[in-house]
């Protein structure tokens, strides 16, 4: 967008941008659920950023004297079946999930937005072809699609991102398309057309900024889904290869030892649940407040 609008950003627009950003934030703070959600997210983001400082131990180092041990002074949340510190693995697992999930959502938002804008704005045959293809992808149960893709390309961090992007793109494209279809009929788009603006200008400068609101909320929800998916893939053994700390994988491992170390499985469950709940609360609050304001 910036490339296209080039010199149009005038100096006096900047403070208003900042103010708008703050405005968006303060909107959230008006909603109690949104605030709680935001707090949870911020908590986990901070944990991810400061993981090396917060984690008491190396998440990979094994202690053969402490296998599946419960909470102790040395290991606050106990150790797993390989004698690794669960707390440290949880903390470092935050990084994995908070990098991969937003990354994959960002990728699908990018691809989906381009597809959706194009299909929605041009309509006709372009729209038909793009949407039919995306419909076909959307016809898949999501996990099935993950299974097929990961089975095909193998489990790895990059492939997990690819799979989630692939799965997430059609939904975003659909959303953007439907918003575009609506916005396309707005008079300001007609005005731009009557000015003879280039379709790319109309798509990316006139339409895109107005898609932003719902898109952000959708993207937030999708980060939740992506975390969900990364966790599930990890749980099913299709996610990140060990020993990378990964919450889903931790649940999968720890659940074998429910009978020896029942609490080990609880921590990653709580972590992933709280994060997704936080995101959903946040998105909910955001949606509620923005619709209230509109």
């Amino acid at each position: 967008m910036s490339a296209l609008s080039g010199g149009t950003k005038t100096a006096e627009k900047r403070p208003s941008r900042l103010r708008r950003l703050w405005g968006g934030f303060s909107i959230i703070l008006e909603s109690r659920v949104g605030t709680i959600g935001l707090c949870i997210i911020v908590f986990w983001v901070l944990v991810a950023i400061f993981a090396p400082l917060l984690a008491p131990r190396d998440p990979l180092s094994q202690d053969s004297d402490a296998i599946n041990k419960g909470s102790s002074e040395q290991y606050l949340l106990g150790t797993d079946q390989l004698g690794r510190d669960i707390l440290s693995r949880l903390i470092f697992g935050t990084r994995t999930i908070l990098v991969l999930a937003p990354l994959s959502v960002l990728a699908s938002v990018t691809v989906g937005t381009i597809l959706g804008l194009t299909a929605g704005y041009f309509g006709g045959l372009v729209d038909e072809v793009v949407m039919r293809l995306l419909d076909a992808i959307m016809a898949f149960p999501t996990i099935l699609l993950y299974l097929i893709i990961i089975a095909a390309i193998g489990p790895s961090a990059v492939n997990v991102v690819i799979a989630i992007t692939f799965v997430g793109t059609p939904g975003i494209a659909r959303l953007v398309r439907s918003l575009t279809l609506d916005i396309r009929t707005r008079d300001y788009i007609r005005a731009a057309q009557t000015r003879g603006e280039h379709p790319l200008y109309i798509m990316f400068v006139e339409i895109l900024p107005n898609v932003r609101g719902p898109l952000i909320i959708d993207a937030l929800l999708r980060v939740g889904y992506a975390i969900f998916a990364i966790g599930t893939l990890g749980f099913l053994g299709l996610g990140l290869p060990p020993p990378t700390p990964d919450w889903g994988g931790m649940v999968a491992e720890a659940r074998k030892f429910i009978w020896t170390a029942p609490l080990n499985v609880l921590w990653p469950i709580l972590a992933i649940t709280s994060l997704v709940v936080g995101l959903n609360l946040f998105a909910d609050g955001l949606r509620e407040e923005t619709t209230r304001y509109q």
Partner: protein
Amino acid sequence: MFRFILRRLGFMLLTMFLVSVVIFLVSEVAPGDVARHILGQFATDDQVKLLRQQMGLEQPLYVRYFDWLVGNEWRLRNKVDMPLVYTKARPKDEIQWWAEESDGTLVQWKYKTSSGSLEQIRIAPDDSREVVDFEGWKTRDDGSQYFWGVDTAGHVVLWVKNVEGAGSGPAAAGRSLGTSGGQEYYPLKKGLLRGDPGISLRTNRPVGPTLARRLRNSFSLALIAFLLIMPIALALGILAGLREGSALDRSISLFSLITTSVPEFASGVFLILVLSFWLDLLPGASVFVDDTAPLQQPKLIILPVLTLTLAEVGYVARMTRASMVEVMNAPYIRTAILKGLPYRRIVFRHALRNALMAPITVIMLHVNWLVGGIVVVEAVFGYPGLGLYMLDSALFKDVNAIEAGAMVMVALAVGTQLIADIIYTFLNPRIRFT
């Protein structure tokens, strides 16, 4: 309305076609050699190459796609010059490819590497089986002898007599390469559309029957869950929607939000932890020692059903609530209130039908999620359903099983959407009467 449904049906077929392309492309054009994967670590390159040939992997992609979709025996029969049939030669046999002689005798050929000769396996219509030496070689202009036939592993094979190293690939340890000794191989396929998803690489048996059984198991699980989810979720959603903003609404909404936020694997494991480990009330795994196990021991499926329910109830309740809120704020509800109608009548006669329209489509679209949930739940509890089958097949890279299972699952998902559309048209007179 009929036109509408027909149109949807058309879209569904188109979607399924595209889905088949996607499935085929994703699973077949994946990096890594399927043949290498099947043969495992200790296979030699020759063995891999032979298996690739036998699996038809050396053929162009579009040929493989159409073979997979619509079969190829009608094409390959020209090579063998005999009708090719996919049948159980005798009632107790596995279903196999045979060439059929005019008197109904089914034949296969088998190459004896040791002697470089062909044997013919013959099964007469009276089910008698005999193995005879075969001398029906054909002769080319240059004097070399060849024969096109059907081998015992479902290939149309070109055998050449007495040619040095006539494609006689060494058999890989523990893995049947069918009969070797051929120069060209074309794997026979009936085609997915004609009801044959092919042979599972994992079990070496037709995918179809396994798929059917697994589907039945999953379907019963999903059905029970569905029957549980719908009334609960709709009731919760309607209640919350009617009392928008009340404490009841807020607690239902929060409950829904949290349960939808918990991944199935987490809630499943959590339920095991609580109900199975701490309280010791329910078994933590669904072990079916025979087909009637779930009927004899309903306990076995309580946890899977509960996990699915927990994951889905919240979502459906939220959708219903949103729709109910919207409808209750609609002008026609205002009309109904200002007509002086009793509250119950407003809710049941005016609001419900309209409020259920949106969720029903969304819920049916959500079948995709339910299916996803089933995969996870089955993996958690070892429930022998389609989801677990798909997961195992994916882990094994059982391409045929993945492709067939995926097609079935997608067809189900798309089919439910069609049903949702039909229900929607019945609920919504705007579509019914246009």
